[in-house]
């Protein structure tokens, strides 16, 4: 699975880090960091993160 976040859209709402904490993290300066190639076992959490992103910036590929 590949995860791509459109950082031009991302507004650091942080909902993805609640839904899939193993993949998305808000760092100490409030910016998103994420694992672009998470294990397939994270799929359900990543789908949840994509669903709850207020600006719909998360794209799941493959």
């Amino acid at each position, binding site marked *: 699975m590949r995860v791509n976040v459109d950082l031009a859209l991302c*507004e*650091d*709402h*942080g*909902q993805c*880090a*609640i839904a899939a*904490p193993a993949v998305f993290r*808000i*760092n*100490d300066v*409030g910016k998103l960091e994420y694992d672009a190639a998470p294990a397939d076992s994270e799929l359900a959490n990543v*789908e949840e993160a*994509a*669903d*709850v992103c*207020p*600006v*719909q910036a998360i*794209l799941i590929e493959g």
Partner: protein
Amino acid sequence: MSASQNVAVVGGSLAGLRAAEQLRAAGHSGPITVYGNEPHLPYNRPPLSKEVLADPDRRTAEAMFDRLVFRRRSSVDDVVFHLGQAVVACDLAAGTLTLADGGTASFDGLVVASGLRPRRLRVDGPKRGAHVLRSIEDCVALRRSLSDESRVVVIGAGFIGCETAATLTSLGHHVVVIEPTGPPMNRVIGSALAGAIQQHHEAHGIHFVIGPGVRGYTGSERVDGVLLDDGATIGADVVVEAVGSVCNTEWLAGNTGLDLSDGVLTDNDLAVVGAERVVAVGDVARFPNPLFDGVPRRVEHWSMPTDTAKRAARTLACQLTGQAPEPAPFAPIPSFWSDQFDLRLQSFGSPALADEVTVEEGDLSDLTAGVLTKHTRGGELVGSIALNLAPARQRTLRDAFVSLVPTS
């Protein structure tokens, strides 16, 4: 079995889309048809009062839709989206829908995802120049009505009203907000925080008129002012009515046994009370949430369609296949956000239920620097609101409610 049973989803917005996706995730392999009365595939509404309202490059419906359309999971590639026509009636016993053009469709299972529409003010005077803001077409019409430095009166200081007022002020318009019940958003966030936000917004140029109600609109062919019930008139080039919502449930009328007094009453599994093989999703669903109490409520948060669709789809899939429903109670933790000027408000829980609000961090006289409020009822935590707090803090704020989720 499931493969031959067809599901109708009435409502083509976020709730309808998530319902279709979650029906597939729950194993329903039969046909799904989504009926939407708007001409567009499901799109994201919150930016309509913020970024999209302000975007100089997106003035047409097409340009707005391109920016707002939801990505759809490949699992719903075979779902039929029947758009641009309202469902006007439904016979649950017969399993049929009637469309606005008189056509009919049958279903084995039904998802009620018909949502809300803006409430309109019923006052004397011209209607031209008075807008609402919920759809792409609403946003296009509002933008077309604005010229440079328009005088805008926003009626209603709830979240939509405040966001719209902040955006229009930032664009250089002269904005007055009228709210009879108290400072902005006070019903949800409490009067102390509401008063602080009012001051913040006044410093950014919004003028608030708190107290009097609206008696009518002045003008001959189009609105040129708003007449208040204290006798004052506020001149206006454009009016935005942001006075709450009406549930789209008329199409269900005539089916005995349903409670349509406020949305559609469901049980905790989102199964519509008084019907079989019918579930409700999104802000039209009035369901009991055991997180705080068992009182059925509708929740008009953006997160609610996604939360409720998951559970409702499993419930319907179980009903269609004769399986037992999921045993664990459905207890979603409500959350919402709102962006207004340089403030981001993030709420967890249900702060509107509170009888006491305390400031845990920060200073209400300087909201930009960050404020955290705790909302309690009878001493128990029911909500928290973070203004401009670091996003990394959110997980902890939300987790405070996880222990309240009942497991059985």
